[in-house]
């Protein structure tokens, strides 16, 4: 009766003994019941109209309608850059990669993207032209992914070296597109909102806090007393205070502390507070990484005639940062989640937007739908960060690379 190997495996894993079997049955019943309940709620009771009606608000907040083409352009550029990088990563075989153009993970990602592009815009009840834009952007991404994978190897190496530069350039261009300037109408930060504001705040704080954290970690190990004590005081002060206090404090005192023009409005002040906050934790992660590099590495580098900065840059930091990577990315993930605290100082990022939507008399009582959507959005962003970090870890681990 139980001849199929899968059945045998199930029996071995779940029903090895009578107690095991009872526990398994109980858990299965529990999981099944809650899943059933969730699905029944999601399909029969939930009123997703609250998400459909406010999808633009959740995405970009009160960003002016006539300027939203800039965001569409940015999304399209991001899709193109992702397709290009993704394709080239697979096309150029390196020591740590299989050289397969479409490994299993990529095929899963492809299916997922295709599903999202066809399902999500329709589920959100977007108009057909808007749906078409999402199809087009996804098609663009996949087409570039395909062609970069197929022909990427033929590009001249000098050009290939420039490809990673696309990302910082795109970040600056994106900032310009979002905020205006360069001949575009200025859109003040107070009009940014929703997912746009969340991603902007988190990405700015991540990018700025990383170098800050590295500098602070080096400062804490420095032999110059002023530098060392300055770093210690900064790190311990920030780590000793809850983020929300710092955010309120920042709204009041950051204007005095930063040179004029650097923190002109509430949004940027909050961004700087997030940066300083995250920087302190990154510093501790990097310090742990630095401490784990054997002293012999520094000695070998110095005995070869490398100067202290050269030894640090070429020998110690690359190893320390790789070790610090998981803890640092963990910090970034909590930072992303901490952006929800910005709603408490009145910024309309995802949670803030959600609260205004739920306060709208038209959508009273639809909190479960809104919070579930938020949770899924955050989960997707954090999962992406985590996946990226693990991929980077594997790539930087020399012992795993088959030569």
């Amino acid at each position, binding site marked *: 009766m139980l001849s199929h190997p899968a059945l045998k495996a199930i029996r071995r894993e779940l029903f090895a003994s009578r107690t095991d079997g009872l526990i398994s049955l109980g858990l299965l019943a529990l999981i099944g019941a809650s899943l059933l309940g969730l699905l029944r709620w999601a399909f029969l009771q939930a009123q997703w109209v609250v998400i459909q009606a406010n999808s633009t608000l959740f995405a970009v907040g009160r960003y002016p309608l006539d300027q939203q083409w800039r965001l569409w352009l940015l999304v399209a550029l991001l899709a193109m850059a992702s397709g290009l990088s993704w394709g080239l990563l697979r096309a150029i075989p390196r020591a740590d990669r299989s050289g397969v153009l479409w490994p299993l993970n990529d095929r899963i990602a492809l299916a997922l993207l295709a599903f999202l592009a066809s399902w999500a815009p329709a589920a959100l009840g977007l108009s057909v032209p808007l749906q078409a834009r999402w199809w087009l952007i996804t098609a663009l991404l996949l087409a570039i992914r395909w062609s970069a994978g197929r022909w990427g190897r033929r590009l001249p190496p000098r050009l290939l070296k420039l490809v990673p530069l696309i990302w910082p350039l795109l970040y600056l261009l994106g900032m310009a597109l979002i905020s205006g300037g360069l001949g575009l109408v200025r859109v003040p930060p107070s009009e940014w909102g929703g997912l746009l504001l969340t991603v902007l705040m988190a990405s700015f704080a991540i990018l700025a806090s990383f170098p800050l954290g590295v500098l602070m970690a080096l400062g804490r190990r420095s032999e110059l007393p002023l530098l060392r004590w300055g770093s210690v005081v900064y790190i311990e002060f920030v780590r000793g205070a809850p983020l929300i206090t710092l955010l309120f404090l920042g709204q009041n005192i950051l204007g005095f502390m930063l040179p004029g023009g650097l923190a002109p409005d509430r949004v940027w002040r909050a961004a700087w507070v997030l940066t300083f906050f995250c920087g302190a934790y990154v510093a501790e992660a990097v310090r742990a990484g630095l401490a784990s590099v054997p002293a012999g590495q520094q000695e070998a580098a110095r005995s*070869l005639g*490398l100067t202290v900065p050269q030894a640090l840059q070429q*020998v110690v930091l690359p190893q320390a940062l790789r070790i610090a990577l998981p803890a640092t990315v963990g910090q970034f993930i909590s930072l992303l989640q901490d952006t929800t605290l910005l709603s408490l100082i009145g910024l309309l990022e995802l949670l803030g937007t959600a609260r205004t939507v739920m306060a709208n008399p038209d959508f009273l009582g639809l909190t479960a739908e809104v919070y579930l959507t938020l949770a899924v959005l955050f989960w997707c962003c954090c999962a992406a960060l985590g996946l990226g970090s693990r991929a980077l870890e594997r790539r930087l681990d020399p012992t795993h690379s088959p030569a």
Partner: protein
Amino acid sequence: MTTPSISSAQAPAATGPWMIEAIGVQKRYPNGFHALRGVDLRVRRGEVVVIMGPSGSGKSTFIRTFNALEEFQEGSITIDGTALSNDLRNIDLIRCETGMVFQQFNLFPHLTVLQNLCLAPVLVRKRRRSEVERQATALLERVGIAEQASKYPGQLSGGQQQRVAIARSLCMEPRILLFDEPTSALDPEMVGEVLEVMKGLAADGMTMVVVTHEMGFAREVAHRVVLMSEGRIVEEAPPSTFFTNPQHERSRQFLAQIL
């Protein structure tokens, strides 16, 4: 066994100018431990000096003062005419001319073997990468591991790693090589391959100061053997005299223990 024969590895007794002149070197650690209590050593160009001694006798500390990995408080050290001072430029200059091979290899694990060799010549000597790579490949061939150039240190055996470390030092074209117990961390069957490379270097006239317990190597290759104990040099003699007719009681004790 009466008089040890001079092997082919041993270069003729060096008569060149002084490459290392250490006079009255004293070192105290911050915790008060008096590691070096006035050590004098002079090494000529092309000479191979082996330093022996029980652990804690200060022999590693002593050779680590030659390239300023350890500071010292009194005395003077002159490397190839350049006095070792607190001037950072002087220290960098001396480190370029003084290669060091460590007990724990200390290869850079995040770089390939070839990158390990090329890092310093490109960064410090400002030489062209292509030219350095050619030299590095030749050096790897000389130490017998040319086929491993694109591997990472973690993928090599201990003996191979130590040979890479020697090649890495040689790639800077140093005038002096310091060895700090180069075979102590190796499995016994890998000691030979590293010693062979070192013998080859000695035969080519490299000035070498070697801290080691390898009696065979000392007998065969060294021009002079130095015994250190408790931060002082106890005995200094050619290997033939040192191993067969040590003058000091402390040397006799040490030899009795390791033979």
